[in-house]
């Protein structure tokens, strides 16, 4: 990511001490490539991300489509992993590779943020495109978290795929927050390939709600369990 700054609308912010701050959506505009690069950074070579489309009320809405090779490592330990940096809660893996970083959504960049850490802090506004991309890419991590809460062991999960429409951008914070939630809740779809008792999977899909459509593909039994649903009517009401 650091090598791509000049071409992907990133803005390095001079570090006062210790770590660096890279602005990909506060003062810098950021963009599609920056958002994709951020997701790849979270995935650390263990997945794939692409942009797609979803037809909704005559609109070809952009979607963020994600493919996870090691969901156990990437979802909870990276994309949803909270780290305390000073008084702020940021997101990122505890440690891995050369890119020790955290992602922080903020409306303003304060250079002294980096004084509390030697990590690279990647910042974007919650109203930015990068933030919307990150939000949509969370559909799989959130589903994995939900599955774990419903009794699945992380080790039982082999691979995952997800797609979620992008929350339509706006400068109104409340509207953006509502749209991000609606994109996942009414437009998110997730496939998880795993090895679990069929009965547990049936129980899970019977109770699934609040996160679009889940499809649980049981590798040993060759059965697929589908829960939740896409609600395109509510989705269009909320995000268009």
């Amino acid at each position, binding site marked *: 990511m650091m090598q791509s700054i000049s071409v992907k609308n990133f803005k390095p912010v001079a570090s006062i001490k210790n770590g660096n701050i890279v602005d990909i959506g506060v003062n810098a505009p950021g963009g599609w490539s920056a958002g994709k690069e951020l997701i790849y950074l979270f995935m650390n*070579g263990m997945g794939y991300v*692409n942009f797609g489309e979803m037809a909704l009320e005559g609109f070809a809405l952009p979607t963020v489509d994600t493919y996870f090779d*090691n969901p156990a490592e990437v979802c909870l330990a990276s994309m949803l992993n909270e780290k305390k940096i000073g008084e702020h809660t940021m997101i990122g893996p505890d440690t891995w590779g050369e890119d020790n970083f955290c992602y922080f959504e903020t409306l303003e960049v304060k250079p002294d943020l980096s004084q509390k850490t030697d990590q690279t802090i990647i910042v974007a506004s919650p109203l930015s495109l990068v933030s919307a991309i990150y939000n949509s890419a969370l559909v799989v991590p959130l589903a994995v978290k939900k599955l774990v809460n419903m009794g699945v062991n992380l080790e039982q999960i082999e691979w995952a795929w997800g797609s979620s429409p992008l929350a339509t951008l706006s400068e109104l914070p409340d509207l953006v927050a509502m749209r991000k939630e609606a994109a996942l809740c009414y437009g998110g*779809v997730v496939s998880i390939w795993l090895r679990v008792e069929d009965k547990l999977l049936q129980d899970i899909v019977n109770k699934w709600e609040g996160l679009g459509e889940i499809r649980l*593909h049981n590798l040993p039994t060759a059965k697929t369990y589908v829960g939740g649903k896409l609600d395109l009517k509510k989705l269009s009401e909320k995000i268009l």
Partner: protein
Amino acid sequence: MSEFQFNTSINDRSAEIIEKKVIPNADKLNIEIHRLNNGATVLDMGINAKGGWLAGKYFTEIGLGGLGELSFTKMKIGRYFMPALKISVDLPTIAEMSSHVAFWRVPWQGKNVNISGPIRSIKRPDIFSQAVSYQDKWAKKIVAEIQTTEMPDEAFTSHLAEQAGYSPKDLYVIVARTGTLVGAIQVGARNVEQTLPTLFDHGLKMDWIVQANGITPMVSVVDDELIAYGRVNDSLIYGQESNVYVNCEDEDIISILDRIPFYKNKDVFGIPFQDLFARSDNDWTKVSRDWDAPCKVNLFNIKTGHSFSTGRLSHEVLEKSFLG
């Protein structure tokens, strides 16, 4: 196009992917590297190893001789969005007929081992590799791919390398079962790979083919090899769509159009491939050649500007495969 000479080793292009992108990232890709005592290197992407999306992508791109790209996208089949495999092939007749097509049958211990990959372009041992003029005369390394449940051993890899006229130390063999994510990806990605031999079977000259791409929904991944085999083939005969750009007379296309797609088999259309395979004693050599046919093919004639399409998807079969 026919006068263009491609004087580059597709084996070396594949070896470069292996050496630069795959081996250094083996852990993250969930694959295993085995260096055999005879010097051959076997990459397990889905026999004992778990593999994944990226391993499947590399399996495919290695199989294309480095002349194409697999990207992931999605399709809506029936009520469901599904991941899908998009293939964009450069120099399609070389990438597919000389390399990707799985048609070199190497006799070994009473069975035939089906080999795909650029190694086929060295000696051009089968009818499809012989259908194009390209021959890899420059290869420093040789690369073979096998859809199998058994890890190749020293004896087999020595035999394979010998067949190609190389030392086993120059040989890479990539393997995966069908019942893995890599298996589902690399078989599903054989959309253009399935289409070009079918066109060849029906008399379309390979010199006429200019460009090609294709898409296939990835309907299923399961452990059981027979079920997996059935479902990945469902994705091809009931779900893939290839675009082929040709330079010929319209009549050359029109005359074969009805004989190209799987839909021509009206007596069995709609039957899952697992059942068709059972009717063939679960033996690929007994499967009717007409059943190994692409679902849908679009032909764009650059000479006349006319477009043709043949075949149809079966959302019903695909949805059934998806749900299990």
